[in-house]
């Protein structure tokens, strides 16, 4: 496999400008003749579909939800980064670029990240013009807050609902194009396969989730914007329907999956409370601006708290261990997510955890409430505090919140080059579903930035460089053998699932997979655990295909069938994640191999052996996937051990 990242020549700061100046474009009369499929309507998908529609392309947009406005970008709380330097605190495009590369533990591609930092400012302008109600100061100008991994305040926000407001902005732009007729919207319609003709992506097969009908759709190019694969862990902060199936289908058609072991465990989530639980709820990282994280200093206090004999507010200041402030004085409570998560796990494993299960730490606002008053805290985080109280039934203004790390985001994903094109010509991947910008760990408020950067400002350019060579290709009939075969395969897969008529529910398999993943491919990984996980996943997968039970039929609205198709893919992806984690014999970012750590317990990278992107290539059901390596070259940044002390 030839992994050419297609990084443009020239100095880092001029690459994108040069690319745009010399790339091929498609003229307006030809745009009308070109069809583009965009799968997914989150920040990346909706912004891309809207922007491509505005340019005059013929766009077909798909989502599995009842409306494009539901995509899970909507749940992002804290904010979106941009290098505006409105605060005059020393920010710049270079600094945002540098922080992102460093935060990602030197496992991301320099050129892509620099471009991301460069277009970050355009995103803010665009969203303001759309009427996104960002937080403002009394002078009427935009307000900022700080996030982990940065020493400047560059995060723009709309209360604790930034993702919602940005997504509704993109959804509005998309709605405008639907009305204009440039975008055709397909809701409750899920992609089940990619159609490749003569080596190029030419369409998709979908299932209408209401009727069960399988449909064929042609396009000159296909864009997947289908999000991350965090739900492989069953419990995560992802939406119930979030899935990896589109990414997995294109992998089987020839695209590579890069760095699948890079998953982000977010430090501030509401702890797990029961085995009936269906998902985990995030408490925004922005809370770490004003909340202080601690556990009791004495084991006996921790014990007493767990048994309900002692309240956290009764523990004296001197008996509290603000362990992030202690270990990382320079960044304190605002260390990057991977560092904060591991530190919480370390304290809990050592017996200092709180909550009924001992798997929780405190996030305490008392100091800030004393300093700023409750009203200010309420203004900043009111909806988050309310959400916490609704779920946990405790008032966080009076007693500290309890939090614990949970699976949140996946940095790995479909391999793409500088143009966001996969190894299948004409197939592009944008947003969380690609691997490109966050390396081994994503900084807070950077997911929204990347989704919108890809969708508004990168893909609408780069896709034209591809399509300009395709202007003479007329629309291909969906009766060609490639479409017919792809549909036939899907129908066979569905029939096979329906005919098993086993004894165990889809969810029961998903939960078993989730436990294997969390225990062995979660926050701490070892060679032994990963080897065990690979075998255990195989066992669950074989059992799934023999014993899964799906009531109802495939020609009706059938959520059990939808879940089964997704879980079948998770059961294969989970194994690849473990394999990738096993192969990467180093610790970096969210990937922590316990064998590779410093004496102080920090991640120990091995740049000599592993400074590359691992891009896995599918070789068929009965063959092991092949590992391709894209070396990472740092020409503008001095690679160093991350230091947040």
């Amino acid at each position: 496999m030839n992994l050419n990242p297609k990084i443009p020549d020239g100095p880092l700061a001029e690459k994108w400008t040069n690319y745009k100046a010399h790339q091929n474009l498609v003229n307006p009369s030809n745009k009308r003749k070109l069809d583009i499929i965009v799968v997914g309507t989150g920040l990346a998908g909706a912004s891309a579909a809207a922007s491509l529609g505005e340019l005059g392309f013929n766009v077909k947009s798909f989502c599995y939800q009842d409306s494009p406005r539901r995509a899970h970008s909507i749940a992002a709380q804290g904010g979106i980064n941009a290098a505006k330097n409105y605060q005059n605190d020393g920010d710049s495009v270079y600094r945002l670029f540098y922080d992102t590369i460093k935060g990602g533990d030197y496992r991301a591609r320099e050129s892509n990240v620099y471009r991301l930092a460069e277009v970050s400012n355009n995103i803010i302008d665009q969203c303001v013009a759309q009427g996104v109600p960002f937080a403002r100061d009394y002078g009427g100008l935009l307000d900022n807050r700080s996030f982990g991994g940065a020493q400047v305040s560059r995060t723009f926000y709309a209360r604790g609902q930034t993702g919602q407001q940005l997504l509704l902005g993109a959804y509005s732009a998309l709605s405008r194009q639907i009305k204009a007729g440039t975008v055709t919207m397909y809701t409750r319609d899920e992609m089940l396969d990619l159609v490749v003709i003569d080596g190029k992506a030419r369409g998709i097969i979908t299932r209408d989730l209401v009727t069960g009908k399988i449909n064929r759709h042609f396009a000159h190019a296909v864009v997947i914007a289908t999000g991350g694969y965090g739900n492989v862990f069953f419990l995560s902060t992802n939406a119930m329907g979030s899935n990896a199936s589109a990414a997995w289908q294109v992998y089987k058609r020839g695209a590579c999956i890069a760095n699948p072991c890079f998953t982000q465990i977010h430090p501030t989530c509401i702890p797990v409370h029961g085995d009936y639980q269906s998902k985990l709820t995030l408490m925004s990282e922005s809370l770490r601006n004003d909340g202080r994280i601690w556990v009791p200093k004495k084991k006996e206090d921790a014990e007493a708290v767990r048994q309900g004999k002692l309240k956290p507010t009764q523990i004296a200041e001197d008996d509290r261990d603000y362990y992030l402030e202690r270990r990382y004085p320079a960044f304190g409570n605002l260390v990057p997510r991977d560092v904060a998560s591991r530190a919480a796990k370390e304290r809990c494993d050592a017996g200092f955890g709180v909550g009924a299960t001992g798997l929780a730490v405190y996030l305490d606002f008392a100091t800030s409430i004393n300093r700023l008053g409750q009203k200010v805290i309420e203004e900043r985080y009111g909806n988050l505090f309310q959400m916490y109280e609704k779920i946990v039934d405790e008032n966080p203004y009076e007693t500290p919140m309890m939090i614990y790390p949970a699976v949140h985001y996946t940095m790995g994903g479909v391999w793409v080059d500088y143009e966001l094109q996969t190894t299948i010509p004409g197939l592009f991947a944008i947003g969380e579903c690609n691997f490109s910008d966050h390396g081994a760990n994503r900084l807070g408020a950077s997911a929204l930035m990347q989704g919108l950067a890809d969708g508004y400002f990168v893909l609408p350019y780069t896709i034209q460089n591809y399509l300009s060579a395709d202007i003479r290709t007329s629309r291909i009939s969906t009766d060609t053998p490639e479409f017919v075969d792809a549909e036939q395969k899907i129908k066979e897969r569905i029939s096979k699932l329906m005919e098993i008529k086993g004894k165990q529910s889809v969810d029961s398999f998903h939960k078993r997979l989730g436990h294997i993943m969390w225990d062995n491919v979660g926050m701490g990984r070892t060679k032994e655990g990963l080897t065990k996980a690979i075998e255990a996943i195989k066992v669950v997968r074989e059992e799934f295909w023999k014993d899964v039970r799906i009531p109802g039929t495939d020609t009706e609205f059938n959520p059990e069938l939808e879940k089964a198709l997704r879980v079948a893919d998770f059961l294969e992806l989970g194994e690849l994640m473990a394999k990738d984690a096993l192969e990467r014999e180093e610790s970096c970012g969210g990937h922590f191999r316990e064998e590779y750590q410093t004496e102080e317990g920090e991640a120990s990278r091995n740049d000599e052996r592993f400074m590359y992107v691992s891009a896995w290539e599918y070789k068929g059901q009965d063959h092991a996937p092949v590992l391709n390596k894209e070396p990472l070259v740092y020409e503008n940044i001095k690679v160093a051990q991350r230091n947040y002390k």
Partner: protein
Amino acid sequence: MDFTLKIWRQENAKTKGKFVTYQINNISADCSFLEMLDQLNEQLVDKFEKPVCFDHDCREGICGMCSLYINGRPHGNDSGVTTCQLHMRHFKSGDTIVVEPFRAKAFPIIKDLVIDRSAFDKIIQEGGYVSVNTGGVPDGNAIPIPKADADLAMDAAACIGCGACVAACKNASAMLFVSAKVSQFALLPQGRVEAKRRVDLMVSKMDDLGFGNCTNTGACEAECPKEIKLSNIARLFREYYVSKIS
């Protein structure tokens, strides 16, 4: 906790529906309403029966996909929450709970508790946006906006499009939903440019789609999980009349 559930079951849009009674036991008080339904569905799958279909996705109260009319109230008996954030501690063990879909002419039933709310998308498509293309916009700080206006716009923009306002309204009016979007843009300078056109188009589309009118009962405000204020409807009326006389 133990419950008797009376749940609306309907095969598809064309067939007639009916209530079916189920018993569910040993439910934790910390469990959400949808997690309680998950457990019921596990039981049904065990018996090889079709699970109860309901819409849901984010399960953190923001995507607006979950719905349900629980004991006569959209999103149940807690205030300021969606069904996914409603917890069983708000019920008493032994309660009988009646679960229906949101009912409105403009929201046809797809199956069981699943409804089609695409009418909301159609209203937004008429004018729920500022008509700017990607690129070529001024700097974010070029348009100062008074904090009070930005905050009010944000209050309105918090709408999640779940349709509880329609379900709560005796007229099945979408006025609170439409007014939230109209208000968000009416309060911001970016939205003023096409304010007249917007309100006109969105209100007529709402009427075309079969939503009822507003008679100021305020049930929508009382049941809105995001506590969108009735004053937005007053603003909608004002915007609408101004668009007609000027």
